[in-house]
């Protein structure tokens, strides 16, 4: 095995080595399996937590640069030790509990949000053959487990017994439950094309037979990718959809009353969820770990970092949306467009098939993957552009109606004012 192969398969070699070591000591069996699984879980959680530290640093640096600030620069070179300083600060802070808090609910909420954020990492394929557990429902599992954060946020909002917390929790439900719909609707086209819900299978479908990257699904389904990304930003509650913790309106939303490590757990949950959405986006639409020259795990890291950079970019530049804008965007733009797109993809993927086996089973026209991608790309862009045109036209009509209404009210006011002479209404 050459050095390049060894570097490419580094994660696989390490994991195989650990498995062999444990089985060598205990002998193959249930005990060894349990220990290997436990080690894998610890490794994945540690990876996620370390990435969380790196993400907080990167986000503060990037957003600072976008806003013409310096960002953290005191702790270590380039402020690199800032996350560790923050961690020490969080550990040493007083752990407060409001006197009127619902104790069990209040204390369980941060644990639940952090646990279920970390659980999603079990199904992410990090490199060929390196995956916690290759569930055949991978992407569905990620979205299902991600919905637990809604419950945790509600528990935090209620348990704190604080009106701002509760308001933040109420906003969360409307937002997170609503944006789950376009998220799922835009995952289905990918599942249709890949023929599987398993994340490893979806990556496989975007890889050529010789291991080189094929056409990523973002070129098949640009509309789905865009809608999934917007829904992902809203699902993680990040700017510009950070209504659940809008500090200028409701202090900090659901985590007003939390301090110390409990607050840190909420931060961990938020960032790990963001990381999970980035990885899912990279896996579904950008081809996952597939890539030339560099080792696969590095490709996944690069793609995930690219997606996360767009998250930071949005945070640094966009103002927060209003609640009604948030809801309108979801239910009047994203959901209808996604449904139309889903139907179009279903029909086109049935008409134009790429594998002879599928053609023999279901009929249809046999085309090359490039042609299929081109057809779906054109259909997606047509739906996207016409959807945007309809939305823009509708918005213009509504705005004109509103202006006309304001003008008619002004007229009425003027008429009412001019009919009063000397304080008494004219007969």
């Amino acid at each position: 095995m050459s050095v390049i192969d060894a570097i490419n398969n580094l994660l696989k070699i390490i994991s195989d080595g650990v498995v062999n070591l444990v089985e060598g000591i205990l002998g193959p069996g249930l005990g060894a399996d349990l220990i290997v699984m436990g080690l894998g879980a610890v490794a994945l959680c540690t990876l996620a937590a370390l990435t969380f530290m790196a993400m907080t640093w990167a986000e503060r640096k990037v957003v600072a640069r976008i806003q013409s600030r310096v960002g953290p620069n005191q702790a270590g070179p380039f402020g690199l030790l800032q996350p560790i300083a923050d961690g020490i600060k969080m550990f040493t802070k007083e752990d407060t509990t409001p006197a009127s808090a619902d104790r069990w609910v209040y204390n369980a909420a941060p644990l639940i949000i952090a646990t279920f954020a970390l659980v999603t990492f079990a199904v992410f394929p990090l490199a060929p053959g390196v995956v916690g557990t290759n569930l055949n429902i991978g992407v569905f599992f990620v979205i299902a487990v991600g919905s637990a954060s809604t419950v945790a946020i509600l528990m935090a909002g209620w348990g704190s017994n604080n009106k701002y917390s509760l308001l933040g929790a109420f906003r969360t439900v409307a937002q997170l439950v609503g944006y789950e719909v376009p998220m799922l609707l835009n995952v289905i086209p990918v599942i249709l094309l890949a023929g599987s819900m398993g994340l490893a299978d979806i990556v496989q479908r975007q890889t050529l037979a010789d291991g080189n990257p094929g056409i990523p699904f973002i070129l098949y389904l640009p509309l789905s990718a865009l809608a999934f990304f917007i829904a992902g930003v809203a699902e993680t509650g990040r700017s510009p959809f950070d209504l659940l913790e809008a500090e200028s309106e409701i202090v900090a939303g659901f985590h007003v009353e939390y301090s110390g490590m409990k607050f840190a757990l909420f931060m961990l949950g938020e960032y790990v969820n963001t990381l999970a959405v980035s990885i899912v986006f990279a896996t579904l639409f950008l081809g996952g770990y597939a890539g030339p020259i560099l080792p696969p795990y590095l490709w996944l890291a690069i793609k995930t970092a690219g997606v996360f950079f767009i998250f930071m970019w949005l945070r640094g530049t966009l103002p927060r949306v209003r609640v009604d804008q948030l809801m309108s965007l979801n239910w009047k733009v994203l959901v209808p467009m996604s449904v139309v797109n889903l139907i179009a993809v279903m029909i086109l993927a049935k008409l134009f098939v790429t594998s002879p086996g599928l053609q023999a089973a279901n009929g249809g026209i046999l085309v090359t993957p490039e042609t299929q991608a081109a057809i779906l790309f054109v259909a997606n862009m047509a739906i996207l552009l016409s959807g945007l045109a309809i939305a823009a036209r509708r918005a213009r009509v509504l705005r004109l109606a509103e202006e006309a209404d304001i003008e008619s009210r002004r007229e009425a006011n003027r008429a009412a004012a001019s009919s009063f002479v000397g304080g008494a209404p004219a007969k």
Partner: protein
Amino acid sequence: MTISQILFIVMSLVVLGGGVMVVTARNLFHAALFLILSFFGVVGLYLLLDAGFFAAAQFLVYIGAISILIIFAVMLTRGVQLAQPANSQWPAALVISVIVFVIMAIMLGPIAITIGQRQFGDVSWPNVTAGQPAPAVADDSLVRLGQSFVDFNQYGAAFLLTAVLILVAMVGAIWVARDRTLKDVMEERAELAAEEAQEAMLAGLVQQPLPLGEAQSAESPAVPAAHH
């Protein structure tokens, strides 16, 4: 005992314990949270049965959506903290629950019972003994599930009917919470203003001029002059 048996007992205890706490908890919000715990136990049971898709669906639908709706309903209820877990109807509820439980136990139990011409029970569950491998779940169970939903010889009709039912419910929800047009709102305001004016006249009150910002729209009838 095998590990899966221990896990089954633990998960069953979570389901049953959560269920008992739901009906006995004095705080309604706690009751809703125990319901989520109970649902979570069901997720665990599905996982023990190698039914990953059902587990994820149970998680997404029951924990992620239905329980949230229940919590919302609870939060909009008065007296969340001091709710009485039981009212005067508890004996009736107890009788009905016992009857339902007995019927289900008979339907799913191994003992054959003949009532009239129909035979109930006599269900033989696949028995897994220790040391023997559990019956394997086919890898393509998810594929077969999907195919059974579109096959009219299996569950195609039921699936379509459910879809139509949900669509009707969705349309109904949208109609109930529909966005009224500007004209509707203006007409309602005009009616309201007319009623108020009439009441004021009947009461013989002096009609104060309205502040400019809240003046009536052009469509509302002119406020009649009050007596001086």
